[in-house]
Every structure is written in structure tokens, then in C-alpha cells.
């Protein structure tokens, strides 16, 4: 039997292998990674600074140790150039690798906004451990940081950096924090607590250009104003890595197109995690990855099963004002209603039959996440 080959050593790839090993002790599994394949907690990249974590100390299990524990063949620092589907083989920097079934857990790339100016290339984004190491190095000589994007990752970094003593400015063309996830009533709750930490907000403006100046970078915004910063961090979202799948002739859309069995347009190739579009949805969060990995492990071990996603709240790690949100699709019919206020806010989203479909919990209300999920499950 040719091995199950997994491309990617992030949460998706490793969780899949771990779950698969529980169901099948003997299957030959090869995991190929373009980086060191050491395991670390990716969600911690945007809140590790205040905890004094270096890139090295974020590694919880070294690659060789995982390979030993799970009984897999691990190929770190290996590039995959192409998939020859007709021969079921991969062309890689370590030579040709044959697969029985192939799992794409390739992740996503940070979106880079097209910016003008002589320093537009100096923009930093933090999407993996190597990025984090570079980010920490650059921070050593910085005092002020401009963050592009007031979404989940931008807000987490703002809290982390401001908490560590940096002067942070967050720039976003929308009107309030987390606008992609929740209504203004909830998102605006973050304004004051983060301002109190030292965050300056610049909403309604986009960064147009970044140029070098005497001490760091000069940013020009779309409203004509300017600001300077020692470092510019971009956090404007992720783009699924689909090139390998596209060039192999697999169906791709925003992500690699897979069904509820995580199967692509080739019956022997599967995808999950940030690179995948599962039944039309790209869900680059921890909980959907865990559910998809468990379902795919069952599929690969021969069970006829489909992934089912329960209500999966997204947690925003902003200790100055914690947030838990169960977002609803933009066009979902219904209304956001305030259920409680005080230290933060508790909003519920109710459909036309008055059923709870989503929620936004901020501040002390964020602790009621499990309770709210139960109310939704009961629907």
C-alpha cells in the first residue's frame, strides 16, 4: 500500500495525522512540510509577546519527537513542486514521492495590499513561526508600530503590543474594530479599553503609501493625513494556498474545493484547514479545523462520514476586553438585539422566527460563550 501523504505541518495537518493514528495504528503516513515541522500554537502568535515568548519557546513539540510518537515518516524543509495525478506522485525537493491518498493541508498566505512608496516591501506580516522570529527581531529596535487592519488578528496584535509598551496605531477603512465579525454596537466596545492601553485608532482611512524616513517609516493615508512608525504590521486577512491544486487541475474557487467528506475533484485527494473551501465555506479558525480533521480521519480509515460543523464561536484574544462571537452570514435574515450591557455587551442575533442564530459577547459577557452555544444547539 502506498502511504497517505499529508502536505503541511500546521494544526490541520498534525491534527489529521493524530486523529488518523487513533483509528489506524498501521497505516503508512508521510508528512511533508516546507518548514521545520516543529509544532507550535498558531493562535498564540498574536498574543505571545506579553507572555515573553520567543519563537523557540513557542515550540511545544519538536518535529522528530512528533514523528516518533505518531510513527510517521516526516520530511521537513521539503518543497512540493507539483502533483502528477495520473501517476499518483509528487515532485518534491526530496525527489519523487508516491501517494495512495493525498491530503492538502497547505494553509494560507497573508494578503498583501498593493501599496505605493519606497518602503512598501518593509511591511511585516506574522503567519508562521519564522515570521514571528523576524517580527520579534524587528521589534527590538522599535517603539511605535502601525497595524494595518482592525480585524481579529489586528486587534489581538494591538492588545499584545500595547500591553508590552509599544505605541500602537491601528488603521482600517471601516468604521470600528472587528467589523467583519459583528455589528458596531459590539465591535466599538473594544475602542476604549484598547485606547486605555495606548492604542490609537484611525478608522475610515486606508494606508496608501509607505516611505522610509529618517527614523523609520512614513505612512500616507487615503484621507490625506500621515503618521510615522518604526514598524508596519499588516493584518488584513488570509488567502488560501490553491496554486498547487490549481496547477494539478483540481477544482479551486476561493479555496481548494472539497465536499463534506473533504474530498476534492480527485477522489484520492483531500484538503482541509485554511487552504480548503468546504461545501462553499472557507473557515480559517481553530474549531472548524479540529472538526474537519476528525471527519477526514474517519473518511480516510474507510468510514462513510461527513463533517458536521456545530455552532463554532470565534474567540478574540484581547485580554483588555475579551470577545467571543458566533458570526452570521452577511445576508442572513434577522436582527441583532442587545441582551445585556455593563462591562461590555451581550448581543444575540435572532432570525425571523425569533430563534437565536449568532451572538457577540464582549468584556465580562464573553464568559457566557458555552451557555450561548447551548441555547443555539437547542434550537
Amino acid at each position: 500500500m502506498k502511504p497517505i501523504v499529508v502536505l503541511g505541518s500546521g494544526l490541520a495537518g498534525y491534527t489529521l495525522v493524530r486523529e488518523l493514528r487513533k483509528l489506524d495504528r498501521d497505516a503508512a503516513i508521510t508528512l511533508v512540510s516546507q518548514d521545520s515541522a516543529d509544532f507550535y500554537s498558531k493562535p498564540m502568535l498574536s498574543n505571545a509577546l506579553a507572555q515573553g515568548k520567543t519563537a523557540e519557546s513557542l515550540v511545544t513539540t519538536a518535529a522528530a519527537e512528533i514523528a516518533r510518537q505518531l510513527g510517521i515518516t516526516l520530511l521537513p524543509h521539503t518543497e512540493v513542486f507539483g502533483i502528477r495525478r495520473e501517476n499518483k506522485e509528487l515532485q518534491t525537493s526530496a525527489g519523487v514521492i508516491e501517494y495512495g491518498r493525498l491530503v492538502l493541508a497547505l494553509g494560507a498566505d497573508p494578503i498583501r495590499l498593493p501599496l505605493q512608496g519606497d518602503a512598501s516591501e518593509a511591511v511585516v506580516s506574522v503567519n508562521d513561526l519564522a515570521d514571528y522570529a523576524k517580527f520579534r527581531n524587528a521589534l527590538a529596535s522599535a517603539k511605535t508600530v502601525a497595524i494595518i487592519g482592525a480585524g481579529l488578528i489586528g486587534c489581538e496584535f494591538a492588545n499584545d503590543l500595547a500591553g508590552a509598551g509599544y505605541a500602537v496605531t491601528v488603521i482600517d477603512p471601516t468604521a470600528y474594530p472587528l467589523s467583519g465579525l459583528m455589528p458596531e454596537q459590539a465591535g466599538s466596545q473594544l475602542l476604549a479599553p484598547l485606547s486605555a492601553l495606548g492604542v490609537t485608532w484611525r478608522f475610515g482611512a486606508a494606508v496608501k503609501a509607505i516611505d522610509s524616513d529618517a527614523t523609520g517609516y512614513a505612512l500616507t493615508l487615503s484621507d490625506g493625513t500621515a503618521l510615522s512608525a518604526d514598524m508596519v504590521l499588516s493584518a488584513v486577512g488570509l488567502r488560501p494556498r490553491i496554486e498547487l491544486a490549481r496547477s494539478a487541475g483540481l477544482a479551486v474557487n476561493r479555496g481548494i474545493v472539497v465536499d463534506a467528506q473533504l474530498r476534492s475533484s480527485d477522489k484520492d485527494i483531500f484538503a482541509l484547514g485554511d487552504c480548503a473551501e468546504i461545501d462553499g465555506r472557507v473557515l480559517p479558525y481553530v474549531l472548524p479545523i479540529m472538526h474537519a480533521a476528525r471527519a477526514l480521519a474517519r473518511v480516510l480509515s474507510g468510514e462513510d462520514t461527513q463533517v458536521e460543523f456545530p455552532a463554532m464561536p470565534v474567540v478574540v484574544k484581547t485580554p483588555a476586553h475579551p470577545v467571543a462571537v458566533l458570526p452570521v452570514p452577511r445576508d442572513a435574515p434577522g436582527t441583532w438585539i442587545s441582551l445585556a450591557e455593563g462591562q461590555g455587551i451581550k448581543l444575540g442575533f435572532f432570525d425571523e422566527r425569533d430563534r437565536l442564530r449568532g451572538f457577540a459577547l464582549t468584556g465580562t459577557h464573553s464568559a457566557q460563550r458555552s451557555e450561548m452555544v447551548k441555547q443555539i444547539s437547542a434550537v
Partner: protein
Amino acid sequence: MKVWQCVVCGFIYDETKGLPEEGIKPGTAWADIPENWACPDCGVAKADFDMVEV
């Protein structure tokens, strides 16, 4: 009393505080949390991933 952190998502469990909203009383040691408990942030079961002491 210790503080623990989920290796997958970074979730913090503080034994002193417990997780009252999950029915885990303040002062509950990690060892006394039931085996079927799962991390509220990422759903990882206690048995699957160890919590690392912070």
C-alpha cells in the same frame, strides 16, 4: 494552584479561578478535571493534548 495552557490554541486554565461557567469550581486542580473535558476554545479533548504548565 497552577496555571495551564492548551498547546493547540493557547487557552489558559487557571486552577485558582476554575471555569465556573463550565461547571468547574474555582480551585479545581487540572488532575481533577474529568477526562471527557474539552478545551472550550478549540475543542481538543483533555486526553489528546496535554496542557503545559505556564
